[in-house]
């Protein structure tokens, strides 16, 4: 909402300057966004007198002017045809910036065709202060030398733009702004009660309110014999200041009253209205041409204004061309009605029409303002356009609303910590338009009809607090909670933190990518549920909640490679979505790597599926989950390579992670060059360790005896997973075997085809006594037997 300061002063008597007014606005909740202060912009330009103007000896069109300025007498070369001796003009000194031309004068005098010019005489347009007809600004001679140009041109009127919060549609009126500023102590509200303009005959146009739920009250008046034409200069100037182009008196005055009082009106050419004017609901099949020149289909949800010809307007949104006033209009019908906010908003959205009327009605217009609107309009029409008004006709009743609230004045102290005298509160509330019935602790307040945001005591507390100013509230640190400080984060948050740090420490860069992705890609990554498809995505390729983080990471890796990265390790800890219920969201941590060529003099091995497994197990280890708890299982997700990936299970049912190479087909769909390797771990699926009652660590059990190690090599069919061999060996003696290490996998000479040799190093940790050779032999035989039983593997000869 924009308004010029001079307009505000119609209703606010104040000696405060612009800065103080701004401060009062901010304090009261009117958040100033911008102040256009022409005086500031024009500060370098002043009134000057042209003492003499002689033709330039070397240029026909130039004149050499001798100018009396606030800075003394100056010689200025001027190209304007109207520069003449005795003229009062606008002077720009050397070095000043000319906004309309977007350049600055040199700070030293410049020769123009051999004559030094010490400044510039400007047109109003050149300093962006108006339009001129012919050359430089030609000002009245009575203006004193040195007067600021803003004053001389009558444009010294700052325009304030501020944010109107949706709870305060009364701030969409200059008078409403003045009321709050007066209540906040910025001045006095100027009494402006609307005077009735009497008509001399009954309004011949009938009004029917046929949908009171949409339009409960409709007031109208006819003015005959009006002379429409340009509105007065002051009115045009005010409209221009708020970016409205003046059209004609009958249109301008409705715009003016809308801004002045937040009271939208509509003017009809009465001669183009046929029969009764009805406020009713639309009928399907109806359409009409609005004032914006577009034709709109009407729906049964819309409130329309209709006459015998059909729809002539959308109530509270926009009128139609068929009954529009024109310069030739002589008989005008003025509508001052009230339209339901929600319906107005729906109609506005359905049609896409943005109008000042819609903006106000959908936020709430004072329902008691219909008759005031008629009288304000009649005053302006009869003052500036003449004519003969009828009596006003009012049909229907203003809507019922809550008009009384109970206010416990101790709530101010309770909720804000602020001590305010009851007398002060009363003064503030009265200034805002509340009527107060004091019944001791509880006051019964009558809410002004233009306020829609007051329902209970807390709402009144806000009024008092903002008028006092939040600066006057105490500033009190929160006391330490009675229960003391406890653990701040949940176990899953702790787990996320640890896992992230484990990966970052292993060279991964943390990414944060969209929670949504293209639906067709989501399908490839195990998702695509329709319940997780957005109906209004921001872009068509961000329309599905992600089932996995890996696709986003893969695309990010490709982007990195396209920009010249050699090797990239990315990870993200974040949500994936398995359904739209509150418990269907999972916290995953996913890592993905595209290996660069391992060019190093030490020949480091390239990152592969085993490396991804190492990173996954590092994360598990970091969050306190030893690798032995989990079992490697076959691939379970179609976006992983069938031969170079696996899933990780905890017990027979719970799968907690997938890792390995991504499937080339999935990568192709994403336009990502492979191979890429990674993992995705469901941090919710990994069980949490029981919280132990004490922080004391378990007693250290450290064997004094030296461990014994022996190597074994088993020949097995290719298809037997190494993990089976390890588990079988480990199971051979659950108390003594402390480690099983795979130290070689061999294929080739000495091993049958389709077979491999797996070499294990077994460590036994003696508990009480040293192991004898016989005991070690027996333990070795147990290992050999266990592996053979479980896998068919035989000891390599």
């Amino acid at each position, binding site marked *: 909402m924009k308004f010029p300061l001079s307009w505000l002063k119609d209703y606010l008597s104040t000696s405060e300057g612009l800065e103080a007014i701004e401060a009062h606005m901010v304090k009261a909740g009117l958040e100033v966004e911008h102040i256009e202060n022409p005086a500031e912009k024009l500060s370098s330009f002043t009134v000057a007198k042209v003492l003499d103007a002689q033709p330039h000896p070397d240029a026909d069109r130039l004149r050499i002017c001798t100018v009396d300025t606030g800075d003394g007498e100056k010689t200025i070369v001027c190209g304007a045809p109207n520069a003449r001796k005795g003229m009062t003009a606008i002077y720009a000194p050397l070095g000043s910036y000319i906004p309309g031309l977007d350049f600055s004068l040199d700070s030293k005098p410049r020769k123009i065709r051999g004559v030094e010019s010490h400044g510039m005489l400007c047109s109003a347009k050149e300093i962006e202060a108006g339009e001129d007809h012919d050359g430089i600004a030609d000002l009245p001679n009575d203006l004193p030398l040195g007067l600021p140009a803003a004053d001389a041109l009558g444009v010294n009127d700052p325009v304030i733009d501020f944010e109107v919060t949706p709870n305060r549609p009364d701030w969409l009126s200059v008078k409403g702004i003045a009321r709050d500023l007066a209540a906040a102590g910025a001045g006095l509200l100027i009494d402006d009660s609307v005077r009735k303009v009497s008509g001399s005959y009954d309004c011949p146009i009938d009004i029917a309110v046929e949908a009171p739920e949409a339009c409960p009250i409709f007031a109208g008046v006819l003015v005959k014999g009006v002379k429409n034409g340009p509105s007065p200069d002051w009115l045009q100037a005010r409209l221009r200041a708020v970016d409205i182009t003046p059209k004609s008196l009958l249109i301008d005055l409705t715009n003016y009253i809308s801004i002045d009082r937040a009271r939208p009106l509509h003017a009809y050419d009465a001669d183009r209205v046929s029969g009764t004017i009805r406020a009713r609901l639309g009928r399907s099949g109806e359409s009409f041409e609005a004032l914006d020149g577009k034709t709109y289909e009407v729906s049964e949800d819309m409130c329309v204004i209709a006459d015998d010809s059909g729809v002539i307007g959308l109530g509270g949104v926009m009128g139609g061309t068929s009954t529009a006033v024109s310069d030739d209009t002589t008989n005008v019908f003025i509508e001052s009605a009230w339209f339901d906010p929600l319906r107005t908003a729906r109609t506005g959205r359905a049609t896409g029409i943005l109008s000042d009327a819609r903006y106000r009605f959908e936020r709430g217009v004072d329902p008691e303002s219909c008759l005031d609107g008629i009288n304000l309009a009649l005053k302006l029409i009869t003052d500036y356009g003449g004519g003969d008004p009828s009596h006003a006709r009012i049909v229907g009743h203003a809507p019922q609303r809550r008009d009384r609230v109970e206010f416990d004045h101790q709530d101010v102290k309770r909720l804000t910590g602020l001590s305010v005298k009851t007398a002060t509160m009363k003064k503030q509330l009265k200034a805002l338009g509340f009527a107060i019935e004091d019944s001791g602790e509880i006051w019964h307040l009558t809410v002004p009809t233009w306020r829609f945001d007051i329902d209970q005591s807390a709402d009144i507390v806000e009024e008092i607090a903002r008028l006092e100013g939040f600066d006057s509230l105490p500033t009190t640190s929160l006391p330490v909670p009675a229960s003391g400080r406890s653990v701040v984060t949940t176990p899953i948050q702790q787990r996320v933190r640890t896992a992230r740090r484990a990966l970052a420490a292993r060279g991964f860069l943390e990414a944060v990518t969209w929670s*949504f992705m293209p639906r067709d890609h989501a399908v490839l990554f195990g998702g695509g549920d*329709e319940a997780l498809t957005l109906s209004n995505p921001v872009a068509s390729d961000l329309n599905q909640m992600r089932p996995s983080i890996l696709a986003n990471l893969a695309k990010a890796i490709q982007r990195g490679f396209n920009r010249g990265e050699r090797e990239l390790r990315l990870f993200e800890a974040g949500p994936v979505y398995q359904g739209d219920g509150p418990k269907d969201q999972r916290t995953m941590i996913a890592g993905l790597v595209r290996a660069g060529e391992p060019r190093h003099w030490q020949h480091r091995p390239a990152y592969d599926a085993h490396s991804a497994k190492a990173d996954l197990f590092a994360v598990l280890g970091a969050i306190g989950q030893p690798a032995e708890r989990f079992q490697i299982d076959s691939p379970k997700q179609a976006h992983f390579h069938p031969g170079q990936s696996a899933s990780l299970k905890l017990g027979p049912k719970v799968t907690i992670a997938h890792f390995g190479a991504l499937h080339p087909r999935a990568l192709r769909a994403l336009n990502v060059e492979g191979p890429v390797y990674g993992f995705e771990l469901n941090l919710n699926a990994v069980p949490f360790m029981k919280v132990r009652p004490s922080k004391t660590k378990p007693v250290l059990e450290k064997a004094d005896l030296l461990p014994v190690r022996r190597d074994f090599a088993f020949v097995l069919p290719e298809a037997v997973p190494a993990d089976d061999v390890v588990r079988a060996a480990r199971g051979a003696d659950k108390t003594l075997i402390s480690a099983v290490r795979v130290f070689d996998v061999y294929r080739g000479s000495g091993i049958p085809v389709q077979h491999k040799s797996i070499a294990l190093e077994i460590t036994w940790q003696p508990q009480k006594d040293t192991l004898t050779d016989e005991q070690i032999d027996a333990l070795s035989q147990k290992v050999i037997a266990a592996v053979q039983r479980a896998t068919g593997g035989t000891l390599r000869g």
Partner: protein
Amino acid sequence: MADIETLGTDVLSAIAAVEDLGTLDEIRIAELGKKGRISGLMKQLGGMTPDQRQEMGPRLNALKTEVSKAIERRKMALEEAALDARLANERTDLSLPPLPEPVGALHPVMQVFEELAAIFGDMGFSVAEGPDIEDDWHNFTALNFPEGHPARETHDTFFFHPQLGDTPKVLRTHTSPVQIRTMMAQTPPIRIIAPGRVYRNDWDATHTPMFHQIEGLVIEKGVHMGHLKGCLIDFVKAFFEIDDVEARFRPHFFPFTEPSAEMDVKFTRKGDSIQVGSGDSWMEILGSGMVHPNVLRNCGIDPNEYQGFAFGLGVDRLAMLKYGMPDLRPYFEADAVWTRHYGFKPWTTPSVSGGLSE
């Protein structure tokens, strides 16, 4: 016994002349071994008269000790020389580059979340979470958004396709639904912060369709708006790691708070960087207010018994202000260069006692 003197001189000079450990050991055996010369002389002591033994015993013992020591000394000298000779050949060019270790980094937004948890944790808050996919009731209705509020429109909010007969689910537009979930699940006193992803249908130079917020909620008897101010000023000082901050609170409107306030802080722009705390301009940093009585009632809390405040702030922008990222958009692009530059080392853990940032 002049021959003992001669023997000693001969053996010692032989030891001194030895150049390898094998020969040295041969001398040891030849002199001090079971059948060695000196051992043989020692054996002869048994056949001597007491007087002879009195004289010869000490002399032979001295000889034996002196030879043993000489052999030991020589052995050490030879071993040292051998080690030096070996090491002289064990050279490696340590100017060669070691295997490169990839360097990881933590995302600044995630780091800032941890900073916030550290600050508010120190004030007695714990961290709560809620789902990204919300229903209309938690995201709007319970938070006192009236029917027809513009935030409920598709130009602001992401909607899912409606399931049979239900109002469609939404992507939460703010972290405020976590207030509702917390108040429904816990009884006061409550102090929580709720960090997380939020979504709005907006994408331009300063908006992304997904961004991060943190919500704060305090419900306790006797907590008033002065505490809100104190808590948030304490927070700004702690977060920006400054001793003092010029702040102001302005009335504003949010459906779920009454009274509502926005907090502005003074800042200075120095070149490309912004310094928060003092300066010539105000900058809005968060929205806050006393929890609306309707919201308390919606969660089954009596507004006459309990009261409190809530606040919400944009974490991405907060991170930009503190760490100087000029643009929001790269946050979500997983750009390696950006992350290496603006990211945090894995071992930086924010804490109030140990400093929030490096």
